[in-house]
């Protein structure tokens, strides 16, 4: 067989051909993923004083990160904001996904999903600015409420604080949560719901005992997809967060660009990554029973 191979000489065995096939994507992945990660990791063990980079390996940055309460507070706040964003996003995404999956006629579903992605046609930055316009002191929200006579003076708790960050991010990530939940709901055999009803359960209990457990893989995916990137978001907190809404990524940015302390920024980035990674792993471990795909 191998002697008759018409392929190039070095591609004779199947294994060699396999390596050849993955070589390009592998190089790509190494260059774009492993190398930057390695660089960040390496940087975090260095130190910098103004413009001189001291390449002696040291744990100084980590020691500072653990002793200065500012960093710990920022990490914790980022975690809490991300958790709030995730909860808000998934809880609002579920009814939308449920509606599209169960109540939209099959021939219109594609259109609905398409419409849900429309906000993504504009830049993320523009969407954040739009929320500023909506939530601002003289913004759409406040003027509408005042025009209706519901409030006398503009609400101030909706912009330049944590609430604004949660609202903006929840909107930005909504499609990422809607899609996996929608897919999970679509996969549910509708006869199972009839079976649940036939066996004596009403709509609510059938939902809780059949629909929800079967949709859990989608919910878990949605939680991870929203939680992991939001913790590293720095544009939204910078623009709508005010002083109390700043997150760890803002500090990392400051370290890198303003304080000229790339090693400290790298150490914070590594810590943030470790935190996201462990929270995600704990979450996956807790929900693992939902993720075993039934064959």
């Amino acid at each position, binding site marked *: 067989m191998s002697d008759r191979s018409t392929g190039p000489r070095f591609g004779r065995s199947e294994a060699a051909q396999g390596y050849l096939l993955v070589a390009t994507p592998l190089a790509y992945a190494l260059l774009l993923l492993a190398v930057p990660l390695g660089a960040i990791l390496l940087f975090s063990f260095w130190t910098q004083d103004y413009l001189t980079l001291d390449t002696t390996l040291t744990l100084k940055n980590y020691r500072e990160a653990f002793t200065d309460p500012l960093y710990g507070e920022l990490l914790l706040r980022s975690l809490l904001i991300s958790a709030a964003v995730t909860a808000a996003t998934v809880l609002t995404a579920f009814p939308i996904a449920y509606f599209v999956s169960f109540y939209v006629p099959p021939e219109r579903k594609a259109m609905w999903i398409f419409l849900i992605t429309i906000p993504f046609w504009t830049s993320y930055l523009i969407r954040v600015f739009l929320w500023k316009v909506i939530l601002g002191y003289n913004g759409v929200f406040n003027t509408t409420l005042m025009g209706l006579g519901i409030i006398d003076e503009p609400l101030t708790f909706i912009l330049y604080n944590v609430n604004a960050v949660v609202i903006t991010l929840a909107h930005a990530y909504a499609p990422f949560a809607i899609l996996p939940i929608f897919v999970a709901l679509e996969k549910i*055999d509708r*006869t*199972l719901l*009839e*079976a*649940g*009803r*036939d*066996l*004596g*359960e*009403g709509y609510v*209990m059938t939902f809780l*005992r*059949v629909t929800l*457990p*079967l949709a859990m893989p989608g919910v878990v995916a949605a939680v991870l997809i929203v939680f992991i990137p939001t913790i590293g978001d720095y544009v939204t907190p910078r623009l709508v967060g005010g002083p109390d809404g700043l997150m760890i990524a803002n500090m990392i940015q400051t370290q890198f660009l303003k304080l000229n302390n790339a090693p400290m920024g790298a150490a914070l980035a590594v810590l943030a990554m470790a935190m996201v990674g462990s929270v995600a792993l704990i979450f996956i471990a807790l929900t693992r029973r*939902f993720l075993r795909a*039934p*064959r």
Partner: protein
Amino acid sequence: MKDTRAAAQPIITLEKVEKYYGDYYALRGITAEIRQGEFFSLLGPSGCGKTTLLRTIAGFEELSGGRLTIDGKDMKGVPANVRPTNMVFQSYAIFPHLTVAQNVGFGLRREPLSRAEKERKVIEALDMVGLKGYGARAAHALSGGQRQRVALARALILEPKVLLLDEPLSALDKKMREQMQMELRRLQRQVGITFILVTHDQEEALIMSDRIAVMFEGQIAQLDTPQMLYRRPVSRQVAEFIGVMNFLPAKATVTDATHIEVEAAGLGRAVIDPEQLPGGWHPGETQSVGIRPETMSILFPGETTDRRVATGVVEDRAYYGDMTYYEVRLDGVEKPMTISMKNLVGRPVLERGEQARVAWDARSLVLFA
């Protein structure tokens, strides 16, 4: 074990039941009574409305017209989850996220039983369907036949008044299907619950049922015992759907209440017992007669008989192992008819083109309008 024969009370009554989707009529006035403890089948080709009828009984479809009662209670506005019926779905609808025991015990949540009692009931139910010791298995790891048994146990554990089965055997292979047919029959006798089976397989319906409703285009064409359906089909449509029947053009020659004579092409004149007539129509309207392949036989050369004899030519022959099917064109008839013969030892075989003498009885003729 309840006595299934004593109480032939209707458990389900259907009065002019109608169901339409827009302009499309799925059920056009179904009137029938299904008796307590019987094995009842809804038989018909796909699209005849049999599944729709089953789903209206289960409560998954609202009636568009007419009346449905189960156990004496009008089911109008009664949702599926409170009806005294349970269903075995065509796809079995086993919950993939639960174990076998959790599937079987699904409907017990509302029952006022202790956890231990529920567990015992689940074990009993699994035992009854031959799945002893399967409780802890994951439902998605089961074979088709096992899924079916889980679906059965899950429905029967709730002791419904009526068990509804929607083509439960169609997904099984032939051997498994035959085994399950006998087992379902045995289970039905054992628990004494009324079973309503939807099937398009006439053989399955004949084997399993006490009574069968044959449905065409949203209506019941005939509701009868398997024997009566086979021997006295009321229309050519029913006769063609159940088994094989040969049709010959015919005319009634003498008809009065006691003496009916028909003249059938190829067979000649025959005296018909009024008992042989389906009710509700006059023998004078006869257009054709039907005769089943196995009620005739081909006489080998020299064989004599006291039955009636017709003559024809063998057009074709098909060997089935236990049986041989002949296509014989009777003299004066255009279409060949099918005759089945048991392959007994020493019985000679006729070849294509040979002359054949066919023995038949007037008693096996069925008259059709």
